[in-house]
């Protein structure tokens, strides 16, 4: 693979630059782990306080859409991993299509999420906007849905950023790719996989509690 001819003056060589960029993404992911970590901690505190309410709330989520979305996202991550693996000047075409495909699956995920949101709105399960839930578990259910919306909204925001990254890379990689693009793709892929991993956690926390006991 051809190296890009120039690199910034603070680097000693092109591999030096590329490894440095990748480390930057790892550190960024560390910061993201703590962002979601704070949220998930709060979730557990309240789930511990309201186990019945959280189970009831979870039973009101759309597990079919949630599961489908998990499959969509994992497939999209697979396409990105594939693109990283085959990336070379000879494969620009396939890499571009793989990235576009991954981005499209990302959009499918967002669209399904939108359908899910609208269903919850119809069922009056949106705290702060329209929330009606009678019975002794109301507080727990409301807290569950607050976390559901905040966590999935932040996750969806990360998805949107990731989709923009993938589409940008798909555009760039069509022309004479270099090691620099490979690094950029590799870093973007790390980010995309991270967003994927976050979803795995959210899936387990949102859709699964209370399913076995109902």
């Amino acid at each position, binding site marked *: 693979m051809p190296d890009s001819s120039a690199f910034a003056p*603070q680097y000693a060589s092109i591999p030096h630059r590329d490894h440095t960029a990748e480390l*930057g993404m790892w*550190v960024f992911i560390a910061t993201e782990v703590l*962002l979601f970590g704070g*949220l998930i901690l709060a979730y557990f505190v*309240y789930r511990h306080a309201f186990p019945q309410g959280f189970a009831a709330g979870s039973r009101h989520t759309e597990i079919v859409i949630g599961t489908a979305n998990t499959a969509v996202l994992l497939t999209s991550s697979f396409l990105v991993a594939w693109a990283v693996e085959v990336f070379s000047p000879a494969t620009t075409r396939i890499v571009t299509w793989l990235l576009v495909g991954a981005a499209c699956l990302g959009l499918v995920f967002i669209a399904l999420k939108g359908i899910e949101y609208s269903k919850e709105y119809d069922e009056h399960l949106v705290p702060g906007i329209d929330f009606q839930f009678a019975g002794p578990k109301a507080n727990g259910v*409301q807290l569950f849905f607050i976390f559901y919306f*905040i966590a999935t909204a932040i996750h969806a925001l990360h998805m949107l950023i990731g989709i923009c990254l993938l589409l940008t890379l798909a555009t760039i990689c069509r022309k004479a790719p270099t090691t620099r693009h490979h690094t950029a793709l590799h870093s973007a892929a790390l980010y995309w996989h991270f967003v994927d991993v976050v979803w795995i956690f959210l899936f387990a926390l949102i859709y699964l509690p209370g399913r076995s006991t109902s």
Partner: protein
Amino acid sequence: MSETNYLTADFTLRSWFLTTDHKRIAILYFASLIVFFFIGGAAATAIRIELATPQADLVSSDIYNRLFTMHGIIMVWFFLIPSIPNTLGNFIVPLMIGARDLAFPRLNLMSWYIFMLGGCTTLFAIFAGGVDTGWTFYTPFSTLYSNSYVIVAAAGVFIAGFSSILTGLNFIVTIHRLRAPGLTWYRLPLFLWSLYATSVILVLATPVLAITLLLMATERFFGVGIFDPRIGGDPLLFQHLFWFYSHPAVYIMILPGMGVINELISCFSRKQVFGYKFVAWCSLAIAAVGFLVWGHHMFVSGQSLIASLVFSFMSFIVAVPSAIKVFNWTATLHKGSIHFDAPMLYALAFIGLFTIGGLTGLFLACLAFDVHATDTYFVVAHFHYIMVGGMVTAYFGGLHYWWPKITGRLYSEYWARTAAVLIFFGFNLTFFPQFILGAEGMPRRYHVYPPEFQLWNVLSSGGAVILAAAYLMPVFYLGYSAFFGRRAPANPWDAPGLEWQTSSPPPEFNFTVQPVVTRDPYQYNEAFEAEPQNA
């Protein structure tokens, strides 16, 4: 001075505001922080004037709440946290490790713009009407009752947090990847070890603040009960999340200062820092243990006694590495050839003030004592000894030490020493009486108090006047020096660090030839020869 340096490379506004040169970005931060420091200082001045008499004669209680909130928010997030890392750190880190820039120069510029966006948002909140929650944004006051610009102020802090994260990320990657050949970890100047530890905290703690403020703002905006006990929420959870960030943030506000002190003590006693490896690892130990002590802010908030005991114990543990540092600095002084230049005066002041601040911190870590001292002026005095007596003093010390490198000019030693001594006396006169007030039971955050407290309050306010005047002095003599001072040589202190091997001010890419490191840091005792660059 025929060669161009980073200051003379280009004079256009564009060359400043779109620069990716870490040295110019440091100057951008420096200029912004001066503004924030004096805004926060003005609020402090108004507070001290109000407290000169027992009655309310300058401001109403409502305005007073907004004043101390503004003072806290500005000073914590827009001065102390970025102070040493983003100005001195930005300037010195690449020079110290023999690099031509930080790893991600554009990210560095972006972090300044994010910082300014956050700063302007917060200033807007303050000037549009202010915030009265205190800098901690405690719920349920901030979410349910406060009738002020809480969301805007929180948004400003939220935005500025990303600037912190990006700076920390940049430092971590830079220190890992861009060290000069031969510059092993144990050859790094200790300033870099403390900045590295600080960066770890910035990267790992700040996102938790972001999510906490987001939850708080969501609750306030949508009226949902995340922390509202009436619908199942728990206000204590907010405090847990907030202090999970904000206690490590206290170490963001002192570790860089400790780093600067290593450089100063070593340089002005012409000795290697005593117990280098201990000091280096103590920085990381403070960063790590600092994540496990947040509950000591909540001893009277209703957390369980077991939790309080554990947090009390951990708070004693975290004092150990801090104490090791203090002992090692004094051991460095022992039999050193001590020079009382202005930076050294600040360093010595730091050791004394930090020790007082640290020891009173141990008082507060004791459960039995803390129950009495919580929310009194004892706490106020304690953390001002750390943050102002420690961090701000170290900031001024570092600023004087590296000033010739940054500007290429020398300052007036006479005025610098005078200001250092005045700051020391003004500071102690302002804050020592507050220990006594706190011990006598005067609560914080009130603008009126019983007349028997007046004597100590008058002393404190008088000290604040001296302190304010002393803080203004550098504006004049350093300002004069920046334009008319004598030209500084490359190495005015005869120091062995890499940053002194290049010209003052440094050229655009720091070094004309890549430096190679062949020895440990702080080799003052060996006859030091300025090696030519192409050695």
